[in-house]
């Protein structure tokens, strides 16, 4: 919300806030107030769901279950054991978080459909267990007589007091969510959602990030569940049923998956929708389905996303450039990179079949070979994206085997991708800035404690400008990457890799798709990088680009090194010519 304000959307946002405040003042029968209170509860639930579904991009179907669990904790402790809000509320948050933490380890590494099913299974088990454990949960009938909110002997009456209490939690929840997702840490979410691989390769620990989104979702859901029970004064298995999950999903889709305003708009709208469509009588729930379908088809970014498209934000003023702080240099140990007898197979195909090579500090080495010779696989193994079956990779003397890609990246081994892997919606500046997340200390505590705009994001942006200027970008760095031409995007990706202040840079076909003048420009900048002390391994087919640049060429064929020497030697090597056959003539 705060960031949106600062981006100059005061008008629509202030209007929205005004409407929100005016609503319960105008529609103020006890029934209206109750519906509006429920809308607040759902807004909190959706705010939580945005972490895992919106920011992490994972279709978790557990949000309803966490909500129900929070509801039952408050219901059981409140009605059966007479506990007050100060005991029940923290426990209603803690138990769903605990459950999330327990199931996270096996479930979070599953892919899309499996993940959705596994989380759905967990939710169903919880519902059935609740139905079975009748002595504790009251079975299908639930537990009546849950007290309202009672704090230190004071009890909060229904109507306005409860409404304000619930919406105070919504505001608090929105504030925390804004702090977590609005700064540099939030940009890391965005990159992870667009490409988990790219996120890992700029040093972001995506497993930890995913886990946190899941836990946050559970915490918000538990809180919403507790408030729900205080509002209804009964808890029943309905709170655990799948339609709660469907409602949350619909609200998130309708409002917008990552926008705080979207959570509130979605919840207020869909909670009231059945009221408005009541004249349709038994058909009103159909309208609900139609609305969801229409939104997903017509406005995939939700209502708030649509509004943002109508009123695009003013382009941000570019930050001033700021050089990166010096990075403690690695102990100069030779060779910088040593690969020995590396093997990687896919099924029966030996993609990398016993490759050994070494890179000296300050060298530019070209890695050539026909398509399918194992060049990209080799890079993927070196950067930790793939695990080798055999062999070792040592970087500055340290073995890299078994390390995660983000750890390897943080040690100073950066790469670019053959098929550009940038976030289209983010500006070039932010695409580069996000790679500073691991170094600028962007984290949860940092994000929560920051005052005003996230200072780490501001600094990372200044550094990003510095890097982008070095690689030759001008004013266009403030535009979304999706709008930039191919050659510029290539350079943005190189700048992003440079943000890791790497000792070794692996470039996967950097000249592909570039015009001749762009190639010449790129070659010049690569030489400057070398003069700055960055060692480079360049995978490339384009010999005219590579020949004058490389100190040495290594040629792969069917997963093996067939030549290794000066460019002239390798180019003249009969085995290399044979490997390429007619291909070289056409390229040279």
């Amino acid at each position, binding site marked *: 919300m705060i960031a949106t304000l600062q981006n100059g959307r005061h008008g629509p946002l202030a209007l929205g806030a005004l409407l929100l405040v005016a609503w319960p003042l105008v529609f103020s029968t006890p029934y209206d107030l109750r519906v509006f209170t429920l809308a607040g509860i759902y807004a909190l639930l959706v705010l939580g769901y945005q972490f895992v579904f919106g920011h992490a991009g994972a*279709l978790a179907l557990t949000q309803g279950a966490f909500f129900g669990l929070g509801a039952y904790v408050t219901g059981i402790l409140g009605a059966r054991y007479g506990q007050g809000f100060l005991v029940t509320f923290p426990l209603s948050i803690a138990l769903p978080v605990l459950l999330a933490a327990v199931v996270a380890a*096996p*479930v979070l590494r*599953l*892919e*899309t*459909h*499996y993940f*959705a*099913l*596994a989380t*759905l*299974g*967990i939710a*169903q*088990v919880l519902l*059935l*267990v609740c*139905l*079975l454990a009748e002595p504790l949960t009251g079975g299908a009938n639930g537990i009546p007589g849950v007290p309202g909110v009672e704090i230190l002997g004071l009890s909060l009456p229904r109507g306005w007091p409860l409404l304000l209490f619930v919406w105070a939690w919504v505001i608090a929840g929105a504030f925390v969510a804004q702090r977590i997702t609005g700064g540099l840490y939030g940009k890391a979410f965005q990159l992870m959602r667009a490409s988990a691989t790219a996120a890992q390769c700029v040093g972001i620990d995506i497993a930890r990030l995913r886990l946190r989104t899941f836990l946050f979702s559970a915490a918000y859901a538990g809180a919403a569940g507790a408030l729900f029970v205080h509002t209804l004064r009964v808890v029943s298995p309905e709170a655990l049923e*799948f339609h709660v999950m*469907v409602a949350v*999903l*619909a609200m998130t*889709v309708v409002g917008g998956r990552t926008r705080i305003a979207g959570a509130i708009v979605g919840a207020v709208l869909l909670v009231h929708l059945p009221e408005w469509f009541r004249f349709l009588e*038994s*058909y009103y*729930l*159909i309208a*609900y*389905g*139609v609305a*969801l*379908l229409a939104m*997903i*088809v017509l406005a*995939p970014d939700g209502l708030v996303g649509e509004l943002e498209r109508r009123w695009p934000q003013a382009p941000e003023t570019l930050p001033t450039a700021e050089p990166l702080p010096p990075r403690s240099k690695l102990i100069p140990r030779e060779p910088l990179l040593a690969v020995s007898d590396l093997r990687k197979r896919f099924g029966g195909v030996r993609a990398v079949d016993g490759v050994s090579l070494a890179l000296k500090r300050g060298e530019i080495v070209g890695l050539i070979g026909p398509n399918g010779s194992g060049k990209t696989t080799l890079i993927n193994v070196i950067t930790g994206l793939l695990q080798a079956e055999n062999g070792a990779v040592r970087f500055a003397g340290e073995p890299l085997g078994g390390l995660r890609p983000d750890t390897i990246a943080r040690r100073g081994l950066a790469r670019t991708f053959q098929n550009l892997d940038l976030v289209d919606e983010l500006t070039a500046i932010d695409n580069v800035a996000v790679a500073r997340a691991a170094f600028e200390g962007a984290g949860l505590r940092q994000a929560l404690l920051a005052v005003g705009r996230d200072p780490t994001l501001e600094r990372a942006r200044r550094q990003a400008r510095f890097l982008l200027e070095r690689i030759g970008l001008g004013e266009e760095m403030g535009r979304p990457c999706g709008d930039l031409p191919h050659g510029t995007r290539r350079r943005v990706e190189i700048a992003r890799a440079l943000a890791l202040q790497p000792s070794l840079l692996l470039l996967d076909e950097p000249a592909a798709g570039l015009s001749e003048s762009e190639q010449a420009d790129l070659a010049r900048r690569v030489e400057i990088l070398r003069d700055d002390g960055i060692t480079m391994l360049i995978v490339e087919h384009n010999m005219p680009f590579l020949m004058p640049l490389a100190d040495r060429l290594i040629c792969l064929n069917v997963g093996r090194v067939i030549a290794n020497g000066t460019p002239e030697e390798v180019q003249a090597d009969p085995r290399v010519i044979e490997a390429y056959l007619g291909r070289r003539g056409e390229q040279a």
Partner: protein
Amino acid sequence: MLQVLVNSLALGSAYALLALGFVLILNAVNAVNFAQGDLVMAGGFVAVAFGMLLPVPGIVLLPLVLVVMALIGRALAAVAYFPLKSRPPVSVFISTIAVGIILQNLANALFGAEPRAAPPLFAGGLVELGGIVVSRQALAIIAVAAVMIAAQYVLFQRTALGRRLRATAQDREMAEALGIRVNHVIAATFAIAAAYAGAAGLLLANTFFVTPTDGGNYILKAYIAVVIGGWGSVPGAVVGALLIALFEVMLPSLPLIVPGLAGLPGASWLFSQTIATILLYLMLLVVLVVRPQGLFGEAVQRRA
């Protein structure tokens, strides 16, 4: 014992039709059709509606149900798949949830929340077969489902349409390049999948009745069958469906088969439908975590 086996086979064959439709769409468009369970429910109600108009046995209604459901499937593709085909698969997941909500509430508005029964396939009652007494309906379900599964096999393996369907499932872009009208093929897949789900609805709606909220339960069964059988494998889905039904029917019947068990403390609690379902989900979670490629291996290579 044999009686239990026949019953679980009957339930399993209906599940198999459902899972088959699920996996056909999955293979054709690489997306989960979450409305598949609601299509079963819809098929049940279509059968109930025709049964009210025409006092004929279910087998006569079957072609009518298949046609109506195929049209519904075609409509499903038109509203929930084609507008979203260039979006991430999760969009289709959500759009089919939306269609599920619509179907469910439409059924509720038209027929009410009370359970309804469709006419039996031939006739109700029991029949003695080699010394055991089984219900006619169970036998009829097995026979009809077996014919339909065989028909699907023949359609896919022996006809030109089947070749196009398989080519589209394997590599859509390649199929398009070869001149296959991929959109027609995908629409046909949705129609077939919905028709099969509808048939399952007709088969189940006599013995187990049909209520508007049944869909959620069925989609889980289809989903689980496809995971157990190996994501994308057609025979795997059928086997998975049979295994699920076997387990569901067997566990509550165990005390009948092994009389000693009935005397155990908590037997009526343990050998219940609910516990069977909980165990089924727990097994599913174990399969997902330990062997995500399913018990029989994954048929489709997930595209990286």
